[in-house]
Every structure is written in structure tokens, then in C-alpha cells.
């Protein structure tokens, strides 16, 4: 139990319970319209620790070709936020893991910020990643309603983020900090180079209050376990989308997660 008698958010709970967290991103409505719950369930069965469901957007600015393509395909498949919430209404009958939603701001604004947060809470979403929502706008206009619906907002930091800003982000984060491994869009680079490890080290030594997950460029067992040496785990996105593109069967998902976790 957390403060004020609330049940601890699943995100905080998992970081208390486990290390080397594997968070897996996948796009809602991909590869086919009603795959969302099935993929989520398969990931849980396969041993993923946290899930990040991407809301498809026509103009995903921070994403590379792989996630762009999955996003366009999902839109083509007819996925919308309304339909996604409908699809997720029984999420918590199938999935116990912490679940985040990742989406760009425009579709969320169109849906309605309060309505969106309310729906997230209703279906059992634990946190949000909105890459084009800056911290100041979050604090001014969004934080209150996110908190009202018990949604953790996850901020990103990159190798170019100043220490001062990292401290500010640490202060306003609750859940974990998403460490972008290099200056890049998603899926742009493979593997981790020594200067990235220097950056991981630098952040590790800052003694932040929040846990950290490393994302962007994590694609296999080697990069996953390297990331786990410097943070509380890692996030895999594009590599998993590529897997879904080739083979989205339960067996294939199981083998993919096994290959990452070993």
C-alpha cells in the first residue's frame, strides 16, 4: 500500500520487486486491427515486465521508419483512440503488468485531455509517454488531471539534456525516467557505443530518485543486458515492431522475448 491508503501504482511496484525490467513497445492496431490485446497478453506470457502501447499518429516526429510504418498501417487498419479504449476495456482481465500509453499530443487533445485521462484510468493504464509534451506545459496544464487519474507522466532525457534539467525532470517524475540512449529518433542506431556508456555512467552517478529505463537502439540480448548494467532496465520498440511485421504469432513473440532476456 502506498501513501494515503492508495494501492501502489503498478509501475512503482514493479521497480520495487524486480530489476532488469524489460519494457516492450508496440503500436495499437498492428499488425491487424484487433491484435492489441492479443499482443499484450502474449508479451506478458513471454516474460515482458512492462508494456507500452503506442497510439498511432499520422506525423510521429520522434519515430524512425519502422514505427512510422506501423503507425500508418494501424491508421489504415482503422485504429483510433476511441476504438483503442473500446478494445482495451477488458485489458485488466488479461494483463497484470504495468501498462503505459505512448502517444503524440494532437490526437489526445482532439479526444479531450480529461476524457482521455479518465478513459486511461478506467481501462487500467498506469502511465503516459507524450514525447511532444514539454515539461513546462505539462506542469501548467496537464499535471493536475494526470494526477487526478493516477497516471504517471514519463519524461525523456537525452545525452544533450543538461544536468540542471535532468534534476528538474527527476523532481517532477514519478515512475521512471526514459533515457534516450543517443541523439536520435527511434530505431535509428543499433547497439551501444562507448560514448553512450559514458552518458549512462554519468546519469547513474547522479543518484536520481527515479528509476531509469534506457530506450532507442536496444534491439537484442547484448544491448539489453548492457543497458541493464547502467539502469533499471530497457525499452525495446522498433526491433519488436520488426518482429511483429515478420511474424506476430504467440510463439514468435515468446521466442523474441526469450532471445532478449536469454
Amino acid at each position, binding site marked *: 500500500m502506498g501513501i494515503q491508503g492508495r494501492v501502489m501504482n503498478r509501475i512503482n511496484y514493479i521497480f520495487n520487486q524486480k530489476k532488469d525490467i524489460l519494457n516492450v513497445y508496440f503500436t495499437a492496431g498492428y499488425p491487424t486491427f484487433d491484435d492489441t490485446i492479443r499482443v499484450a497478453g502474449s508479451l506478458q506470457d513471454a516474460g515482458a515486465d512492462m508494456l507500452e502501447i503506442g497510439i498511432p*499518429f*499520422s*506525423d510521429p*516526429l*520522434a519515430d*524512425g521508419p519502422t514505427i*512510422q510504418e506501423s503507425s*500508418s498501417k494501424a*491508421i489504415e487498419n482503422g485504429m*483510433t*483512440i*476511441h476504438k483503442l479504449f473500446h478494445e482495451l476495456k477488458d485489458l485488466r482481465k488479461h494483463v497484470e503488468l504495468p501498462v503505459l500509453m505512448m502517444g*503524440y*499530443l*494532437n*490526437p*489526445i*487533445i*482532439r*479526444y479531450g485531455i480529461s476524457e482521455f485521462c479518465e478513459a486511461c484510468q478506467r481501462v487500467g493504464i498506469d502511465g503516459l509517454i507524450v*514525447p*511532444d*509534451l*514539454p515539461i513546462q*506545459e505539462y506542469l501548467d496544464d496537464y499535471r493536475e488531471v494526470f494526477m487526478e487519474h493516477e497516471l504517471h507522466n514519463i*519524461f*525523456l*532525457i*537525452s545525452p*544533450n*539534456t*543538461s544536468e540542471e*534539467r535532468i534534476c528538474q525532470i527527476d523532481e517532477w517524475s514519478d515512475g521512471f525516467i526514459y533515457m*534516450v540512449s543517443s*541523439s*536520435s*529518433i527511434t530505431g*535509428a542506431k543499433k547497439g551501444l557505443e562507448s560514448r553512450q556508456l559514458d552518458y549512462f555512467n554519468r546519469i547513474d552517478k547522479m543518484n536520481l530518485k527515479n528509476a531509469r529505463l534506457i530506450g532507442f537502439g536496444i534491439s537484442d540480448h547484448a544491448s539489453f543486458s548492457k543497458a541493464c548494467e547502467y539502469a533499471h532496465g530497457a525499452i525495446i520498440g522498433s526491433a519488436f515492431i520488426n518482429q511483429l511485421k515478420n511474424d506476430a504469432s504467440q510463439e514468435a513473440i515468446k521466442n523474441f522475448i526469450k532471445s532478449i532476456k536469454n
Partner: protein
Amino acid sequence: MKYQVDDKGYYGKFGGAYIPEMLYPNIEELRLSYLSIIDSDEFKNEFEELLKNFVGRPTPLYSAQRLSEKYQTKIFLKREDLCHTGAHKVNNTIGQILLAKRLGKEKIIAETGAGQHGVATAAVCALMGMECVVYMGEVDMNRQKPNVERMKILGAKVRPAKSGSKTLKDATNEAMRHWINNPVETHYIIGSVVGPHPYPDMVARFQSVISAEIQIQLQEQEGKNAPDHIIACVGGGSNAAGAFYHFLDNNDTNLIAAEAAGLGVSTGRSAATTQLGKSGVLHGSKTLLMQTDDGQVAEPYSISAGLDYPGIGPMHAHLFDTGRAEFFDVTDEEAMQAGIELSKLEGIIPAIETSHALAIFGKRRFGNEEVVVLNLSGRGDKDLETYIKQGKY
């Protein structure tokens, strides 16, 4: 200062800097330094020298007699089409490349729709010996071929944007992704009054030379320093921002914007953002945005590549929202006719973007004694193929 950007980077409820954290250091660096750099005497001297000797400023304010006679009003054309590289775009690229140099940047990226901004960027990069990559939608590369070749001759790399509608919006996405991947050495020269704060304000300031000159030239020619009306076309809105700038807070000057209706506002093939858009976030700012009910950005359409954009600069969204500016939508056909009319009456073939502004004369009456300034933002050389295909001349 009601219509200028506020301390937080907003024009009323529009603007801001909605960018991924990866770009925060770049945008913050710009935000903290742009005003002190562009207000310094050293910067101003170099900027003005290049505007004079490289661009050919001041551009004439031309009293268009035959056009005035036809529409029974006093029409002046601000001849931005006579700028080096063929449009007003170069005013901004010179300003930004001088700024980029002072920030220690070595490489330049840009997006382009019609190719005018791309050419203007490629030209200043050649001038300064800087590496230049321009993103252009694949569709636009096909309809504005001469500009693609001009950029290449000037030494720029032109990369096709192949996602979405393959036009300006997608070229902007690709340029922003490139910047995320290369944030340290690269400056992104945005070509319009769009993007995260401080871009809209920065670009408007560089383009404000247009209205500064209009004030002086109108004083010389008409004995007053403000027109009754000023007309400009709006895609993102940089030429309009420049032409309106010094008149924004002068309510005696009526501001008129022409948007591209494409085949017609209700046909589903249009780019008339204020008619079709709702508040949203794209390319780093909150603004009016053409979008579906689910918040997916709509694919716009206009015959004019430079107006083929689903958004509008936040300053213009605010001018629309407050009723400060009148907005008209102009179809492809109306624009083509207006372009040919100007060619026949005044001996000037305008860019098709500009032709949208010219079509206002067929849609709205002006008083006999009223002074109307129209910002002739670009020349039609790049559009010859479209004139040949579509124009009834």
C-alpha cells in the same frame, strides 16, 4: 503589442514549443540568444548589407495602374518577386544563416514546399560555404522540378520525403527527424512562421523588412506611412507575417489573408486551414490544424506547393481567432486566372502562391480612394509548367 508573441512564446492561445526533449537544448539555445543576436549592431550591419547587395533590397513598391483601373482602387505591389532567388524567402534564410554562424553551427538543414525556401537556403549556404541538406516532398519534387535542379546547382543535397502526402508537412517531419539525429552541429532553417517558439517570431522579424520598407515607400509615394489594406497569401504565412508586421497594432490598416481552397473548401481537396482546421499541435506549435475527428493530420491539397500545408503559423491563427485579419479562401482556378490577369495587365507573371492573394480583388470590393498594398511574394518562373498545363491564356 497585442498581436506579437508573449513572454512564454504564445500568440493568444496559439504557439508554444511542443517538441521532443531531444530538441529542447537546441530550441532553448535559440530562445535565449535570438533577440540579443539579431538586435546587435554587428548582426544588423551584416544582415542589412546582404539584404542590399545580395538580395537587391529595397524591393520596389510599384503602383499598378492598369490593375488599379480594373478594380477601381489604388493598388501597390510590393515586389518581393524581384528578390534574388525569386521570392521573399531569402530575407529569412540570410537572417538565420547569420544567426547559425554566431551559434557555431556548421551544417544547415531546411524543408521546402514549392522549393523557394530550399533555393533561398541553398543560396545562402553557398554564400557562407556551409553544408546544406533540403528535404522536399516527393510530390513537390515532381511539380517543382526547376527548383530541385537549382538547389543542386547551388550545392545542396535534396532528399525526398516519402511519407504521408509527400508534400511540405512530410518534408518538415523529415527535417525535424534529421535535427533530432544531428542536434549539435546543425541548425534547422525553418522557412515559415511555423514551428516551436522562437521560430515563428524569429522568422516574422526577419521578414518584417517587407512592411518596414512599405512604410517608407508609401510615405514617399502617397504621403502616408500605412495602407488602408494589405493583402498576402498564407500557407505557413511568412510573407504575410512580414507584410503585416509593422501594421499589426495599427487598426487603421486592414489585414487580408488569402488561403488556398484547392478544388473548393468543401470538396475534401483543400488547404484552407482557418476554414477547415481546429486547434491542434503539429511541428512544435499549437495552432489551427486541418485534422480528422481522431486527431490525425489531414492531407491538404492545393495546386500551389507553397500553400499545400495543413497548418498555419500561430500568429495567423491568432489574427484569425481575434478577427484582426480577414481570411479568404481562393480556389486553384481563381488563382490561376488572377495570375494570368496580372501577367496581361502589368507584365508580371506571379508565383501561383501569390496568385491566390491577387484573386482577392475578384472577391472583395475596395474604395476608389483606398490604398491597397499586395505583397507580390514570388515570381512565376518555377510555375511555368503549371501555367502551361492549367492556365487559360
